[in-house]
């Protein structure tokens, strides 16, 4: 009797979990344009052009953020020079994964936010914490209207010596931590960061750690491209690196002869 009720509990929790599972992968994009009903035609249903993971870490002098430059259209890697990390005001960086057009809209909102902040002309400027708070409200309110901005955002920056690194998801889930990753990065990069991140990483060590994570993503995330940018922000200012590619290693014996020993192979 205990076992059946236990089984029922498992099934019930599976159903509940299913109800909250994230969207399924893209199916034929052409189909949706034929199937939209007029009432919902303005609402976001699926992402179209997407960016993959963004990784951010705090290091000794500030924040380091890395992302590749790919924009995928379903399973096609359509764009290879998409800048997914941008500056926001004097003190912050924003990195975005998910729908690129929604990111561009977010950048427009942030432009207006920073403009109005500057127009006060009071010597004060919005820091990363404020930008994070603003974006959380924007994302949550869009989710409330059932028309989300399909992005996972990473906001990082330094203001008055305080380093800040936070994340917002498309439904408004937000938090701050010493290291952040979106999408596949949560599964592949975060464990590496949990092992190897330290409070007092130097710039070189930070970059090496980020490159290690990005390389891991390159091997295992099919929407990753080998053209990355690493951005650094400190009290002094911000630099976004020129795009460059990572060295990868493919001479594993399992890659040389991938079907050796596989069922049904010869």
């Amino acid at each position, binding site marked *: 009797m205990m076992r059946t009720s236990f089984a029922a509990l498992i099934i019930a929790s599976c159903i509940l979990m299913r109800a909250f*599972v994230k969207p399924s992968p893209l199916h034929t994009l052409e189909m949706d344009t034929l199937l939209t009903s007029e009432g919902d035609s303005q609402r976001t*249903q699926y992402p179209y052009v997407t960016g993959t993971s963004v990784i951010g870490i705090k290091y000794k002098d500030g924040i380091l953020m890395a992302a590749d430059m790919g924009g995928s259209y379903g399973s096609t890697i359509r764009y290879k020079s998409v800048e997914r990390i941008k500056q926001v005001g004097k003190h912050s960086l924003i990195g975005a994964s998910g729908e690129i057009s929604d990111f561009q809209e977010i950048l427009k909102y942030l432009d207006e936010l920073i403009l109005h902040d500057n127009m006060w002309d009071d010597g004060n400027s919005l820091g990363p914490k404020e930008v994070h708070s603003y974006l*959380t409200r924007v994302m949550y309110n869009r989710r409330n209207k059932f028309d989300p901005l399909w992005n996972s955002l990473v906001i990082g920056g330094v203001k008055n010596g305080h380093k800040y690194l936070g994340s917002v998801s498309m*439904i*408004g889930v937000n*938090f701050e931590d010493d290291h952040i990753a979106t999408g596949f990065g949560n*599964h592949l990069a975060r464990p590496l960061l949990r092992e190897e991140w330290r409070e007092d990483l130097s710039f070189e060590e930070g970059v090496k750690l980020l490159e290690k994570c990005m390389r891991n993503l390159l091997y295992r995330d099919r929407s990753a491209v080998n053209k990355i940018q690493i951005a650094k922000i400190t009290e002094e200012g911000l630099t976004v690196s020129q795009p460059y590619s990572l060295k990868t290693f493919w001479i594993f014996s399992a890659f040389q002869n991938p079907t050796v020993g596989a069922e049904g192979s010869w």
Partner: protein
Amino acid sequence: MPKEHANWSPYDNNGGTCVAIAGADYCVIAADTRMSTGYSILTRDYSKICKLADKSYMASSGFQADVKALQKVLSSRHLIYQHQHNKQMSCPAMAQLLSNTLYYKRFFPYYAFNVLGGLDSEGKGCVFTYDAVGSYERVGYSAQGSGATLITPFLDNQLKSPSPLLLPAKDAVTPLSEAEAVDLVKTCFSSATERDIYTGDSVEIIILNANGVRRETEQLRKD
């Protein structure tokens, strides 16, 4: 033409467990600090407890964005109350406000499972427990969230709460001392951590009494 179904959910369960125990002249409110999504951990150091008033602390688990929004709404309503009445809201008053706020969104609920703990106007510990749409009751102790099913039976056994059906109603406030209650809470969390994947990392414990507020942290298993 059949209606299309959205392929995204406006809700997510970010997990976590909250517990509160009311004593004769104290109240203990505790919550773990793990925030998860699906089978991933987002962060190990996230506070689920919010100070709503001097003598009202709310611990909430569930969908974090809704919890944050709820905390914001209640905090700002408390600020307005202070401006209008020139005093802090009492815990029972805050309890009613929370219930009304939750029911206000009855048809698009805050996916938040709340436990409100504090001291009433007589200085006695009070704990209020809620569901996602605002039904609430004053109790001697409560657990909510992913580990609640593991903790509640244990508290029922240890705190030997009198039946709510008795007449005249017997007080459910525990006769345990403050130190014993805090120890009990720590035991609850370390047990729940063993079997609930969404509970762990560390537990944040707030102790309210006549002398003020105290905060304790205890490390939990991180697996």
